[in-house]
Structure formats: structure tokens, C-alpha cells
């Protein structure tokens, strides 16, 4: 198989030496890093100071102070409170009290504030109306989709509850003892029966894996198709087939481009490992937990990429051999690409109920397994036999596809002109 090696070498070097490869390999993990860390960064740093005028018509002198106290205790933010308020960040609320006197019309004051806020986006106000028993806080601002507004709401709630309890005759130490939050710990049971902490971030991990497998298999599969078309269109095949068997050409191309993909994914996986080992400690001190990536998951990721790539790359090679131009390929590749896209349309169903019979069955379908089984592994740790069975089904399908594609390929690469019909493809398979 010396000739296959020569072809693998060419396919690999020609692609790895390009600028596009370097950029894709280095920039993608940086982009991922940015995507993960920037929201954390902004959530923890961002916000700054928000000045809010409180239009207080409650007639409760203690309420304003209670809200302020409640806010203060939050901005000192122990890790615990932050976990309960995701995305709170460090936005600091500075409240100014504007008491609405009994004779004053709230509507007039409010209209004036509304007018000013229309011109100055920094002007934000909070209306407190009704007594302590039926308080109706209303928040007015240019931006009302800010995560940190939740903090304010919770601070008001705490303050109101606190005051009500004090009215009922409890002293402050009793109140803080009775209202102390409890926290539920999430424990995940693995297939081997062990208990593992965590689970909240599994969805993120599963989705990232699903997405990366989908993108990589699609991208490198299309590279194979384009490579075949390039050789066919420029008629290099005519020279190649006088030295190499078509099946060797196809195999060399698929393996060579796959090696390029593995190189890239290797870099990504390594940077993911570095990111999770060093990155986790760096950001978890900020109170936001990073998705942790067990090494076994990364190993599965590589295995499923390789299997998925081989399955689709041989099919894309076959498609490439039957067309004469990129334009024709656009249509011809559709049946193959749809097999890859279907899991992206139904993964929500799987993630909602990853152990149902339908989920298990779908993750066994060889064309869906690279994405769906990978996702199930990330979410529920399915029994090993299921993982191995899906791999075995994929390997069997790959062998079938390689055989079929090689039969079509050897005829297709030398046929120019009109695209063959299904019946013609059937005859190609039988050619001697």
C-alpha cells in the first residue's frame, strides 16, 4: 500500500501547509475560549454602578433601608449566593429615595421622570406603591432585559419578607435562621453505578460536542468531495489512474484529509484540556462553574469523529466522482448531507429523554450515531454495550459504504458529461 501512503502524504501536506488551515486550527479554539470566557468576564466584571431613584409611596420608612441592606449583603457576594443568582455579576445598585408625600400626585412625579429618562438612558426609577402587605414594585428603565435586575427583585423580596416577619414579632436572628436557604446538590449516577457530582453543565458539554462533530464531519467530508471534483475537473485522474487503482486513490484521499481533520481536532482537544484544567480554576474563583470535560469524553469524541468522518467522507467521495462540477455537486450532495443534518433537528428530543427507547434506537442508526450517541454519552453515560454496539454498526456500515463508493468511484471519475441516474449508478456497480 505504498501508493496509498504517497497519496495520503500529498493530500495531507497540501492542506496542512495552507494559511486557511493554520487560521482555522488556531483561531477556532481562541474563539471558543472567547465564547466561554467573555460572558463570564462580563457577568462578573460588567454592570458597574446603576443609580436608581426609588419613588416611595408606601409610607413605610423601614422598607427602603431594608432593601439597601439586602442589596449590600448581595454585592459582598459569597460564592453561594452568586450560584443562586446566575449572571448577577457585580452590578452595584445605588438607590436614592424620593418620598412621595401624602398630598403629592405620584402620576405627576412619574411623568417628569419618564420625560427625563427618555433623554438620558442612565435615568432609572423604581416605583413602590401599596403597603407592605400588598406591595407592587414597578421598575422603569431603558434596558429591562439586564440579568442583574433579578438581583434587585430578589433584594426587594427579601426585604419585604424580612419586614413582614419582624412585624409578626420575630427578632432579626430568628429571621435569618428561619429564612436560611437550603441548596440541592445534583448527583449523577454513572452506568457503572457510581455517583458523580455535578450535571448542570452536561448540557453545554453535550451541545458543544454535538456541534463540533457535526461541523467537522461536514467540513472535512465536503473537502473530500471537492478534492475529488478538482481531480476530475482538471483531468488529473486520467494521469493518476495510469499509476494507481481508483480504490487506492479514494482511500488515500479519504485518509489524508481525515488526518488533516485529526490534526486540527487534536489541537482543539489539547487546548480544551488546557482550558479546563487551568481555565476552570481561573474562572471558578469568580463564582461561575466551568463545564468540566472528563478525558474519557474527549477520547469518545475523537473516536466518533473518526468513525463519522469515514462514513460520510466515503459517501462524499462517491458523490464527487459522479458529478462534473461544483454546481452539480450542490444538488448531488443533498441526500448525504441530510443524513448529517437530521440529528441536528432532533437532538432536543434526545436530550430531553436520553434513555427512552426511541433515543436509544436513533443513536444506533449509523448515520446519526456520531452525533446522537456522542451526545448521549455526554449526558447520561449509556451502558458500554450500547456504545460498542453503535460503533460496531458504524464500522460495518463504513465497510459497506467503502465498497459501494469504490465501485461507483472507479467508473465515475472517468465519466464526464451528464449526471448518471440511479439506474445507471446501479449498472456502474456491476461493471467489471
Amino acid at each position, binding site marked *: 500500500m505504498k501508493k496509498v501512503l504517497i497519496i495520503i502524504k500529498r493530500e495531507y501536506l497540501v492542506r496542512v501547509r495552507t494559511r486557511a488551515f493554520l487560521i482555522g486550527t488556531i483561531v477556532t479554539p481562541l474563539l471558543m475560549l472567547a465564547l466561554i470566557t467573555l460572558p463570564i468576564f462580563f457577568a462578573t466584571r460588567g454592570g458597574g454602578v446603576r443609580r436608581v431613584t426609588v419613588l416611595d409611596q408606601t409610607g413605610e420608612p423601614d422598607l427602603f433601608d431594608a432593601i439597601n441592606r439586602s442589596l449590600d449583603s448581595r454585592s459582598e457576594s459569597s460564592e453561594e449566593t452568586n450560584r443562586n443568582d446566575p449572571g448577577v455579576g457585580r452590578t452595584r445598585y445605588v438607590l436614592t429615595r424620593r418620598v412621595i408625600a401624602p398630598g403629592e400626585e405620584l402620576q405627576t412625579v412619574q411623568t417628569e421622570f419618564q420625560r427625563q429618562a427618555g433623554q438620558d438612558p442612565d435615568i432609572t426609577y423604581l416605583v413602590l406603591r401599596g403597603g407592605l402587605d400588598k406591595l407592587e414594585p414597578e421598575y422603569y428603565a431603558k434596558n429591562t432585559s439586564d440579568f442583574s435586575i433579578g438581583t434587585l427583585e430578589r433584594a426587594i423580596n427579601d426585604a419585604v419578607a424580612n419586614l413582614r416577619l419582624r412585624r409578626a414579632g420575630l427578632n432579626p436572628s430568628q429571621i435569618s435562621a428561619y429564612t436560611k436557604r437550603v441548596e440541592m446538590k445534583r448527583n449523577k449516577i454513572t452506568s457503572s453505578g457510581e455517583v458523580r457530582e455535578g450535571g448542570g453543565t452536561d448540557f453545554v458539554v453535550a451541545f458543544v460536542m454535538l456541534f463540533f462533530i457535526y461541523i467537522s464531519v461536514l467540513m472535512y467530508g465536503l473537502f473530500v468531495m471537492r478534492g475529488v471534483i478538482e481531480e476530475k475537473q482538471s483531468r*488529473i485522474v486520467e*494521469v493518476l489512474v*495510469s499509476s494507481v487503482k481508483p480504490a487506492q486513490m479514494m482511500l488515500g484521499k479519504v485518509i489524508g484529509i481525515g488526518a488533516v481533520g485529526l490534526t486540527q481536532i487534536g489541537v482543539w482537544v489539547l487546548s480544551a484540556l488546557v482550558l479546563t484544567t487551568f481555565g476552570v480554576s481561573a474562572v471558578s474563583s469568580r463564582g461561575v462553574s466551568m463545564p468540566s470535560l472528563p478525558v474519557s469524553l474527549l477520547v469518545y469524541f475523537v473516536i466518533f469523529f473518526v468513525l463519522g468522518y469515514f462514513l460520510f467522507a466515503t459517501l462524499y467521495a462517491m458523490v464527487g466522482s459522479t458529478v462534473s462540477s461544483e454546481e452539480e455537486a450542490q444538488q448531488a450532495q443533498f441526500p448525504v448531507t441530510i443524513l448529517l443534518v437530521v440529528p441536528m433537528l432532533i437532538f432536543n428530543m434526545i436530550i430531553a429523554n436520553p434513555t427512552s427507547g426511541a433515543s436509544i434506537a436513533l443513536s444506533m442508526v449509523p448515520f446519526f450515531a456520531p452525533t446522537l450517541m456522542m451526545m448521549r454519552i455526554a449526558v447520561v453515560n449509556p451502558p458500554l454495550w450500547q456504545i460498542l454496539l453503535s460503533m460496531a454498526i458504524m464500522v460495518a456500515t463504513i465497510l459497506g459504504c467503502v465498497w459501494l463508493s469504490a465501485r461507483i468511484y472507479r467508473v465515475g471519475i472517468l465519466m464526464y458529461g451528464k449526471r448518471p441516474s440511479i439506474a445507471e449508478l446501479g449498472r456502474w456497480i456491476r461493471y467489471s
Partner: protein
Amino acid sequence: MDVVELKNVTKRFDQFVAVRDLSFSVRQGTIFGLLGPNGAGKTTSIRMIVNITAPDEGEVSVMGRKHVSTELQQHIGYLPEERGLYKKMKIGDQLVFFANLKDIATAEAWRRVDQWLERLELSEWKNKKPPDLSKGMQQKVQFIASIIHDPEVMILDEPFSGLDPVNVNLLKGVIIDLKSRGKTVIFSTHQMEQVEQMCDDICLINHSTKVLSGSLKEVKRRYGKNTVILDYEGPDSFLGTDLIKRHNRFPNYSEILLNDSADAQEVLRRALAAGARVNRFELVEPSLNEIFIECVTGKGSNGNQRQE
């Protein structure tokens, strides 16, 4: 010794018969012309010799061996009519890649690449990529790719198309040189003058079957001296009569094909009688061009057709 031999070869694609019962043999150290109109079955025949496709019936043998292994491909060089280069690969790397595929080790391949690039005046393009080269230069690179492994048998399909006369002569020199070293060349082209210049033997295929084969001299002799080259001034009313089958008028002379029983002297007599001034009168064998047209159309080119 016959280096390439086809025996009763037939190749079908579904209902269509691309080659029917074709037999010919190519002697070692000769240049063999494989001729025929477009779609006659030349490319299919060549692909069977190179072992890209297998015949449905009959037998192809190369260098005395039945053509079943790919190992024999190492001794064949193939320059297809439709050919190309990788756009994103340097010329040198590309040639080494093709040499590697023919079992030439990399160091040796580089030595040969340098040698050939030098000989075909392409040395300065070694580290350039194909889009930087003119079509003619790419053509020469493809030529090198097909012979870099010093094959025993070379199959060249329209090797000169798109080349200027200087480069055509350069390649012709290489081919003649290879022939003198005992290599065998199968040469396929539509340029009959080139065949007349270079080929020892020819085989003409039409509609998937052989219509003519043998040594070039013998083929021409078979047609006899039935053609008159006439250079004259004056009226041409004496032409187009019962004596003449066809008449090709070129700017400087006329090529007149006589009817089977016609006497050439009668043409001369009539021309003089009609008052034409005859500068040259010569009885010759027909040109290969005429033989080709006659075999393919069954009647030859249209009378009085002007040719370039």
C-alpha cells in the same frame, strides 16, 4: 518484438460497443500512430492498454505479459488528451509526486525533475504553481510527468496540441530521442502531417472497428499514385470532369485525385488544351489526410474544398 498487442478486443458500455474485435500490435522501438475521428474508440483502446479499464472480450498484452497486474503500469507512460495539474502544488513537488507513484524514490525523482525541467526550458518555474504558467508550459510539465519514470512504452494522446512550433520541435526531439533508445511510442493525433513525419506504423479506427493498419509506407503504397499535384495559371474549366474524383485547391497548387481508371496524362493534356500555364505537374501518393478522410467518410472531402 511486439511490445503491445491487442487480440480481438471488444469493450461495451451497456448497449454501446466502444471497441469491436480490435487487433493490432506495436513493434518495439517504433512510433505507432493510433488514428481515428472523435468518438471512434481510441481513448477506450488506450485505457485498456494502460489497464484503466479491462476488455470484455479478447486480450491485451504489454511487453509479452497478459495485462492483469498494476505492476506493468510502471513501464507505461500515459499522457492523456485531457490532462491537468494540481492548481495548488508547486511544479517540482507535483512532478515528484507523479514520479513517486511510479515507484521512483524521492531523491532520484528530484534529480530527474531538475534534468527534465532544464531540458524543456522550465527550470525557473520549478517553485511556481500551475496558474502562473502559460498553457504551453503546463503542457510541457504534463509531458514530463508522463515520462519521468523512463517507461518502455509511452502513450501520447495529442501531445502537441496548443504548443507553438518551437516547443513542438522541442518535444519531437525528445520523442525521437526516446525512440532511438529503443522505447516504443503510441501516438494518437488528428494532425496527419505529424503522423506522416513521425510514425512507422499506423492503425485507423472508425465506428469502433479497425479500418486500416500497417506500416505507413505500405498503406500509402496500397492507395497507389493516383494523385496529381498541379501548379498552374489560367482557367480551371478542365477540372470537374469524368476523370477527377476530387479536387483540393490550395493557394499555391491543386491536389487532384483521379478516378480509378483515369490516366494522369489526360489531365495534363486537357489543361494545356484549355489554355492553362502549367508550372508543376507531379504524380504522387495520396496524403494521409486524404486517406483518413476517405476511410472515415467513405467518399473523402468535398470537391474544391479550400484548405488552409
